[in-house]
């Protein structure tokens, strides 16, 4: 492991390269991680593709090769999974469509509020972030109770009997609302970091030029925040497309699988009914969809720049 003695090198008049290590040293440092990374990240990413090309039933000994048939099935209306899969994709799409606008704008308003100098700022920052450290399991059972049509706090305070968890559009409002409550702090903190990176001089200069508060927001804050905005938008889109726990615990997919998301359907197909070939194919179709949307996003926001 240890090769040339360092003493010898320090005697030599030639300037040394910054780092001289034994040839094996870097790999020894990397080895423990690379074993985990190889077995649980690289291998499954490729293995999943292999599975998706087979009729892979976990419980049966034979897993025949079917080529692209699992993928074709997802696009042919007469196949078993077609309508369920696309309904779940629709649910994920709707959730994303409803939640992303709130998850991108509301945290920005909160971050602007917290960006002012005032006593207790750190305290409020922590309070708004707090729900995020709780897992979706806690958040889910808690909101299931708050949204209970009969004894839930929400209907009680509204003196209403709204079916928050069993009917649309209420179920969507519930899922979006609890998600905003749960994750608002996360996006707000990222915005806040972005706001603090905008140089103060830009605001001062704008003020000298007589810009109003709104003009300063539009011409200093928004352009300065653009990379952060793109980051938040991308992460939120990915997060929304991954939605699982809220539907699983609060609406249980109700009414009639209307709020059963793609991940829920994929997990059920692969890990409950053990039709893993189809499930793997579905997960790649969803991943590809996300990739296309993200790429589209990047292009769109970059073009606006010029």
């Amino acid at each position, binding site marked *: 492991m240890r090769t040339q003695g360092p003493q010898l090198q320090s005697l030599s008049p030639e300037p040394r390269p910054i780092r001289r290590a034994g040839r094996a040293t870097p790999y020894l440092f990397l080895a423990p991680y690379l074993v985990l990374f190889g077995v649980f990240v690289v291998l499954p990413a490729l293995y999943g593709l292999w599975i998706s090309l087979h009729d892979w039933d976990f419980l049966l000994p034979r897993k025949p090769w079917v080529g692209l048939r699992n993928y074709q099935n997802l696009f042919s209306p007469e196949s078993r999974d077609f309508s369920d899969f696309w309904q779940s994709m629709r649910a994920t799409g709707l959730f994303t469509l409803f939640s992303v606008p709130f998850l991108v704008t509301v945290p920005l308003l909160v971050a602007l509020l917290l960006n002012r100098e005032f006593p207790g700022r750190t305290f409020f920052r922590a309070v708004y972030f707090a729900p995020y450290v709780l*897992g979706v399991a806690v958040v889910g059972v808690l909101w299931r109770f708050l949204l209970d049509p009969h004894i839930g706090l929400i209907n009680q305070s509204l003196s209403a009997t709204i079916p928050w968890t069993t009917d649309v559009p209420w179920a969507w409002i519930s899922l979006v609302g609890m998600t905003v409550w749960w994750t608002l702090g996360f996006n707000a903190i990222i915005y806040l970091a972005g706001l603090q990176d905008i140089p103060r001089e830009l605001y001062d200069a704008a003020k000298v030029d007589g810009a109003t508060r709104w003009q300063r927001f539009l011409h200093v804050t928004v352009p300065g925040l653009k990379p952060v905005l793109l980051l938040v938008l991308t992460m939120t889109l990915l997060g929304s497309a991954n939605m699982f726990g809220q539907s699983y615990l609060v609406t249980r997919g109700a009414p009639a699988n209307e709020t059963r998301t793609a991940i829920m359907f994929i997990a059920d197909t692969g890990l409950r009914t053990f039709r893993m070939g189809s499930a793997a194919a579905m997960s790649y179709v969803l991943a590809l969809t996300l990739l296309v949307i993200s790429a589209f996003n990047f292009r769109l926001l970059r073009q606006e720049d010029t």
Partner: protein
Amino acid sequence: MRATTRPLARLPFYVLLLLLTWVFVAPLLWMLSTSLKTNADATRLPPSWIPRPFTTEAYVPLLSLGSETPVLRWFLNSILTATANALLVVGTSILAAYALARLEFPGRRVLFGLIVGTLFIPTFVFLIPNFLIVNSLGWLDSLWALIVPGAGSAFGVFFMRQFFTSLPRELEEAALIEGANQWQIFYRVILPLSRPGIATLTVLSFLINYNDFIWPVYVLFSPGSFTLPPGLSILQGAYTTNYPVIMAGGVLASIPAIILFVLAQRHVIEGVSRSGLKG
């Protein structure tokens, strides 16, 4: 324009802040309050914030290990798994990140690119194949399934590499001249300077693992081997009409996360904003 001098002008601002605070805190207080009620009291109308009487009876069925829903056992399983996973993540990623940040070797850039690239693969892609890999390792329905696979995550390496890269080169130069080898430099020079980063990564890894839901729901089957997240979903099924018990489960599950957050609040929030921005 400048309202700072007149306290009255700041009033709407503070009202808004406190209103928001209530929105975030009220559900959590309601969970705590309900967990200290009798079932009759929890369903009484109109609802009251103060339990009448205060009782801890909802916690009793949760804490007995013999019951169908041994929340205490799930709690211990969760703490054990999240701790073991966090140690594994931190241990392997500080070593790897050190090599990637401070050592020259062929393939360094490609390897780092590959690792970071995997951050962009959505996690659900790994669900089915990792289930099969864990099965062939004989880890289904065991806590190993929760401890080991998640430790291969690229996030830890990425995060620590950012941290190590920011340390000045001169430090290790000096150590090198004094005859230290790579391991000594790593252990005596780099690690002590990186304590804040390591602490942040430890807390974040613990919380991520502690809160993970979908994976434990599908790889653990028997209630004895559950952790809290799948456990809470079972608890909800078993006590559908008894909300004090379910809320007591929620309170117990929240305690470690809240304590950790309060202790490391500044680091966690900074860790989130830092890791987010440099992504």
